């Protein structure tokens, strides 16, 4: 019975296992490891109104582009998102479990799961996934961002593949393109015109677009903006009003004037 509101427990009772690429599975070799889809740049950054979370759209397997319309910024509930990097099969599954966990908790316990409780839920999943992560078949390195209605502020957390949790006080990045932009974020925050946390929404979006374009420049597994296909990164803002998408029209406009043709 779910009297504790624990959805993962309910799943286990029904015989479900998250470890769906078990490390002892036969046939996992270095050669076919390179065929597993991965590669990404995702980032979360605090700005004036809350948190901005963004991700490129590319999924790669080895040097093959699998897909160019991936949504890696996954809404878990009204107030939080998980931006994923790593093996998408496992990451999407984790997001689905978390989404249902938060809903199940709220509906069964008649109160929202606390922000810390949500963080713990993600850590638990990552911990359970360690064997698959170490085997290379299920490594997921997410960024968790949300608005804490109890404390009235945005929060960002990032993880290593073993599930260790770190708070990103100003920003956090993940994925193969992230080393490129981590330094830029630090530089901008420290010596830029103003600290990132004081930017307004438009300024913050411009920075996010420039960062993702830089990541795509140096990381082949990160997709840049595709003008012809009208394909822009996923950018979401999280404020006291909840999670909202930044429209691709707005991104298109800002990209054209502030990123592509900016002197």
């Amino acid at each position, binding site marked *: 019975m*779910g009297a504790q509101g624990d*959805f993962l427990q*309910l799943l286990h009772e*029904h015989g479900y296992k998250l470890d769906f690429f078990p490390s002892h599975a036969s046939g996992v070799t270095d050669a076919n490891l390179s065929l597993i889809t991965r590669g990404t740049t995702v980032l979360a950054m605090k700005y004036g109104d809350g948190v901005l979370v963004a991700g490129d759209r590319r999924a790669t397997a080895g040097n093959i582009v699998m897909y160019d319309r991936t949504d890696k910024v996954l809404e878990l509930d009204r107030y939080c998102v998980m931006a994923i990097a790593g093996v998408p099969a496992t990451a999407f599954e984790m997001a689905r479990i978390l989404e*249902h966990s938060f*809903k199940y908790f709220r*509906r*069964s316990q*008649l109160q929202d799961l606390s922000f810390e409780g949500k963080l713990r839920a993600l850590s638990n999943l990552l911990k359970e996934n360690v064997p698959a992560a170490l085997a290379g078949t299920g490594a997921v390195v997410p960024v968790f961002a949300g608005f804490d209605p109890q404390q009235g502020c945005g929060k960002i957390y990032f993880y290593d593949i073993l599930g260790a949790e770190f708070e990103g006080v100003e920003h956090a990045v993940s994925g193969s393109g992230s080393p490129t932009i981590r330094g830029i974020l630090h530089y901008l925050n420290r010596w830029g015109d103003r600290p990132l946390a004081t930017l307004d929404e438009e300024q913050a979006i411009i920075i996010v677009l420039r960062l993702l374009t830089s990541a795509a420049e140096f990381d082949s597994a990160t997709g840049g903006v595709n003008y012809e296909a009208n394909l822009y990164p996923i950018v979401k803002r999280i404020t006291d009003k*909840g999670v909202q998408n930044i429209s691709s029209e707005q991104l298109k406009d800002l990209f054209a004037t502030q990123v592509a043709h900016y002197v």
Partner: protein
Amino acid sequence: MYEEPYRWVEAVGNRRQYLDDQLRQGSPVVALSYAEGTVLLTFSKGTPKLYEIYDRIGLAGMGHPADLEKLRFTLLDMAHMEGFQRSPGDVTGSRLVKYGLAPVIKQAFEEIFRAPFIIKILLAELGAKPEQDHFLTVDYDGAFEETPGWAVLGATPEIQRHMMAYVKSQIPQPPPTLQVSVETALQTWAIGSLHQTQEELKPDEPNKSGPATTVQNDPAFDETKILDHLRDTLSEKTLECAVLERDAPGRSKYRSLSPEETRSLLPTVLQEVR
């Protein structure tokens, strides 16, 4: 002693009487479709009676709170496992009732060495359009009924018929606004509640036969009586109101209305009641 068939039938008959007695004090429930969603309404004392089950499904119960909790968890577990392992779109009120809830209630009702559920349940399911809204009710013996547009819970089938007849006479087409629906729901609730009080006063009088109920021959239908009854109830009990909103952002459409919001939806004559 129950191995003889007629004893069993007698025992089940006794159960009906017992359950009818237990439910006579319960607060009726009304659920209606309106233009932008569906609304669930009841009065409660202490324990809430309206709950969220899944993205587009709300629950209302009448009866024993412990039984309602137990069945609520049965529904929650089933809905969330189904929504996770298949898809949220596969979680429908009809499947939850037919394969989850009704068999459990029926079994408990007929196993005469076990306690039955003292419960009547209503599920409201939000559709993409008002005509796709679904309402399901399950009786204490596991019998269920599916209706479009609206559904009610009352202590007896007779009372439910009175309430249904009233809703039918009041609901305008196309579906009304939330405010109009809340007013209709309140009046329907009052009709159910007044009938229950009447039956309580003369419980021995058989009230099962007679011509089909219409609003005209319904003695409880008297506007001042309804208004007085609502005024009394508002000062004694908590008005509970929840909505499933078609245009709510995100997947979860259920929202229980705050006391202030509920109050603002009341007809003006009832707004000042404290």
